[in-house]
């Protein structure tokens, strides 16, 4: 009872606050079409608020085409620092005739609508505040030449919003000038457009909605970055040398940004690159090159998404069985097959954990923050070479392509660790080696690199039956021995992968397990659960597969554990069911979200609430 009441009444609650001021706790949505160049305007709006010291997050909801279809950019302003997607929009900037009616229709009472007057909205809702803006007129006033007007128009709404939401114009100017640092004329023109918008609002519009931005000191020293850029930086600092990729949304920007960094920071004095980046003909070739390079000793990587990962299945099995290092980033998107290429999901985890036929098992890293995208990228290369196996880093579109605040990244103190590689000198001492012998009892054998100048250095790599000394064999006992060694190696991995992170007192009855970008909705939901339902929870964020002991302990310590994830089939839950003691599994409850939108706190809170209700 009580529970549902509170939850249901949430929208009303906010409509009550209509009159009084709401500072630093609202969402702005810019509704436009892609290809209209609103990106830089939106980012200026975002960064202006950010530079006022107020926590923000920006999420772009774009279509799977290039130009002309509806796009929504949402900026969440949150003094408390909540950055997950928020369902309710408080301030709508309506620039798209095609969607304006639905956009307005779905607004909650009390919201504000800044709209292009040419959209002439006849019937208006009484419970909303409307601000009509003559964008075209203002654009002309900027004196921008015809072909630039479409772009400049976006700057005008920045000014209008700045005025209505009392965003500090000095901050806006700094951001504009930083954005166009290299092009002074552009900077001036854009700034002019912002000012015209601002002045129009100041002179003509009367503020009636409650939403305002108030300066804080919560973003000092922080950065705003997307997870794909972070991953690219991580790869560069990991010393990646061979990159082979095939474009696919939403992973392309990992490599495209990496190309930018490498050209700038990894070309030597003589103008030569100490890396190779190749656009392959497809994903089979991309991972093939990665494995060829890993075999020959390079730190190699590729980045892809669902369909590309499916195409890598055969090679993934070769990498596992022939024990070849390589790093594969999967920036997950929604759905089976082509699905929704520009929507987010966490739907590849079970598939990749066993990617390829016949008892193949892989190691997964699951970053949940942009900082972890950076750190795990580095970690991945150490693990790939340390364990001599492909390492999959699973990010997603939300984490990878949206704007996230973060503490600045720390320079890696740990030197590169290149794994068990024998050189000619060591071979002399040992008088040879057996490629697949479990010398150290950890399941990880020693390898040599092609070119090692020693008559005993060479060995034969194959995906078929082999004995300890890499000779071909079909003997049952040799095959079994090797497969069991691979199990030992997987066990060893548990001691090397990132451990989960626990939050909460550790003493609560109810626990939550999640991974990846679901983190942000979960922490906000935990706050809602505590405030609204007086339900305190503990939380464990899983950061890698195979799972480590901490996971079992966490489940053991709680009565109920909600497993929250962004896929239909409860994939993390399924992996837990396979690996955990069944007695523990009885405590697990599934909460899934899979409509392509980033998970929001309210969805989690509702689900927990009703399930908890169900318990009573």
């Amino acid at each position, binding site marked *: 009872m009580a529970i549902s009441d509170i939850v249901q009444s949430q929208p009303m609650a906010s409509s009550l606050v209509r009159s009084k001021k709401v500072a630093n706790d609202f969402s702005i949505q810019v509704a436009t079409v892609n290809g209209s160049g609103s990106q830089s305007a939106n980012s200026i709006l975002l960064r202006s608020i950010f530079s006022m010291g107020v926590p923000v997050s920006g999420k772009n909801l774009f279509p799977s085409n290039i130009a002309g279809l509806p796009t929504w950019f949402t900026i969440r302003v949150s003094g408390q620092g909540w950055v997950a997607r928020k369902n309710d929009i408080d301030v709508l900037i309506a620039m798209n005739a095609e969607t304006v009616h639905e956009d307005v229709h779905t607004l909650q009472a009390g919201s504000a609508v800044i709209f292009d007057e040419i959209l002439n909205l006849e019937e208006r809702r009484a419970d909303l505040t409307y601000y009509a803006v003559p964008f075209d007129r203002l654009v002309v006033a900027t004196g921008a030449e015809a072909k630039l007007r479409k772009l400049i128009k976006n700057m005008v709404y920045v000014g209008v919003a700045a005025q209505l939401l009392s965003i500090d114009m000095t901050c806006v100017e700094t951001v504009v000038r930083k954005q166009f640092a290299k092009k002074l004329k552009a900077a001036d023109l854009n700034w002019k457009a912002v000012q015209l918008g601002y002045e129009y609002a100041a002179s003509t519009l009367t503020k009636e909605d409650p939403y305002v931005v108030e300066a804080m000191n919560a973003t000092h020293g922080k950065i705003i970055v997307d997870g794909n850029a972070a991953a690219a930086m991580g790869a560069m600092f990991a010393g990646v040398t061979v990159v082979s990729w095939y474009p696919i949304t939403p992973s392309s920007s990992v490599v495209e940004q990496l190309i930018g960094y490498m050209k700038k920071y990894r070309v030597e004095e003589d103008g030569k690159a100490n890396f190779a980046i190749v656009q392959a003909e497809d994903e089979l070739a991309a991972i093939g090159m990665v494995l060829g390079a890993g075999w020959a000793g390079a730190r190699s990587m590729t980045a892809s998404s669902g369909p590309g990962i499916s195409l890598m299945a055969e090679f993934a099995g070769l990498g596992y069985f022939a024990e070849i290092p390589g790093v594969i980033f999967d920036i997950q998107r929604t759905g089976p097959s082509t699905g929704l290429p520009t929507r987010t999901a966490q739907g590849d985890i079970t598939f990749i954990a066993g990617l390829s036929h016949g008892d193949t098992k892989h190691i997964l890293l699951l970053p949940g923050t942009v900082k972890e995208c950076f750190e795990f990228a580095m970690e991945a290369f150490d693990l790939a070479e340390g364990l001599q196996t492909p390492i999959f880093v699973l990010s997603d579109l939300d984490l990878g392509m949206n704007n996230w605040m973060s503490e600045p990244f720390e320079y890696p103190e740990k030197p590169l660790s290149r794994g068990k590689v024998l050189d000619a000198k060591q071979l002399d001492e040992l008088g040879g080696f057996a490629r697949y012998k479990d010398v150290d009892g950890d399941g990880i054998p020693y390898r040599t690199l092609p070119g090692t100048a020693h008559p005993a250095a060479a060995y034969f*790599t194959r995906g078929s039956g082999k004995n300890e000394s890499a000779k071909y064999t079909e003997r049952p006992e040799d095959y079994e021995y090797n497969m069991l060694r691979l199990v030992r190696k997987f066990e060893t991995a548990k001691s090397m992968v990132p451990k989960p992170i626990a939050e909460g007192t550790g003493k609560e009855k109810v626990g939550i397990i999640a991974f990846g970008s679901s983190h942000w909705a979960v922490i906000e939901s935990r706050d809602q659960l505590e405030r609204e339902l007086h339900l305190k929870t503990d939380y464990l964020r899983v950061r890698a597969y195979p799972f480590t002991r901490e996971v079992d302990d966490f489940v053991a310590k709680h009565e109920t554990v909600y497993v929250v994830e962004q896929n239909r089939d409860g994939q993390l839950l399924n992996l837990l069911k396979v690996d955990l003691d069944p007695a523990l599994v009885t405590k697990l409850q599934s909460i899934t979200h899979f409509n392509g939108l980033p998970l929001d706190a309210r969805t989690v809170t509702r689900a927990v609430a009703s399930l908890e209700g169900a318990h009573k």
Partner: protein
Amino acid sequence: MSTTPVTSAAAKTNRIGLQVLDYRGSKTTLCAGCGHNAIAERILEAYYEMGIQPERVMKMSGIGCSSKSPAYFMSRSFSFNSVHGRMPSVATGALLANKTMRSIGISGDGDTASIGMGQFVHLLRRNVPMIYIIEDNGVYGLTKGQFSATADIGSKLKTGVVNDLAPIDVCALAIQMGATFVGRSFSGDKKQLSTMLKAAIAHRGTVLLDVISPCVTFNDHEGSTKSYKYMQEHDDVVSEIGFIPPYEDIAVEYDPDTTVDVQLHDGSHLRLRKLHEDYDPTSKGRAVSMLMEAHEKGEILTGVFYVSAKEEDFTSTLNMVDEPLATLSSDRVRPGREVLAELMQEHR
């Protein structure tokens, strides 16, 4: 294998003081008489004679009887028997990691022209510096003799099944797609194959050699166009091949009207004496149309069809540092603190 004439030379050593023995592989598990075995012999002889350090060679392959053969030569070389039809990408990756290595890939007609077509074409287009050998028997040997995409129209299997699709001429394709040294030979033609192999070792860029290599078990009978008998009867040599390694004096005379002399990357010379009227190993267009017309006439041409020492290979195109990327010191591949600081600043 160790019972072939070559061993008589075992005592001898090559320019780097190694014996033929140092180039041997393990005992073949292929059928006795399989063309692939002879090719493996020719390959190891060529590397021996050219005095290449075995440890400097990477042997790459896909899957098939042919793709097994890297196991049967040069055990002191590093070898990667990958997956079916995907050797090109693996070989490319290995060379990116270490461009100072030599690479030789052994594939089959199925491994290349069927499942491998996509990667094959793109390897050629990139002019990846390696020797790519197709041990071409017109069938899938390892899966018991189904037709491959190089089987000729009308060619008959023992089972009586007749092939009704036109063959893919991998040489014409290779020339069109950008390979810089393209030829065809026959596992039974010891002299021609050996000379081509030595020239191939001297070339830098993609060398595509389509070596007809009869499958004695599934495609060496009457009605097969890839049998020993058929090849002996139809082998139509387009040019006589002479190879002069850099360490030999090239003063030898030749007639420029009938002979093309090509200086290869390591300074050795390839001398091609024209035997076929439309022969011109320096023109892609003419080489391709010669091959296509030969098909219509039902001729099987062998020899070096096209060679060019001008194009830059893929590792040069990428303008990489001289050392192998694989073993660069971490201070070269991990940028300093100031770089991270700069990047962080940009995102504030």
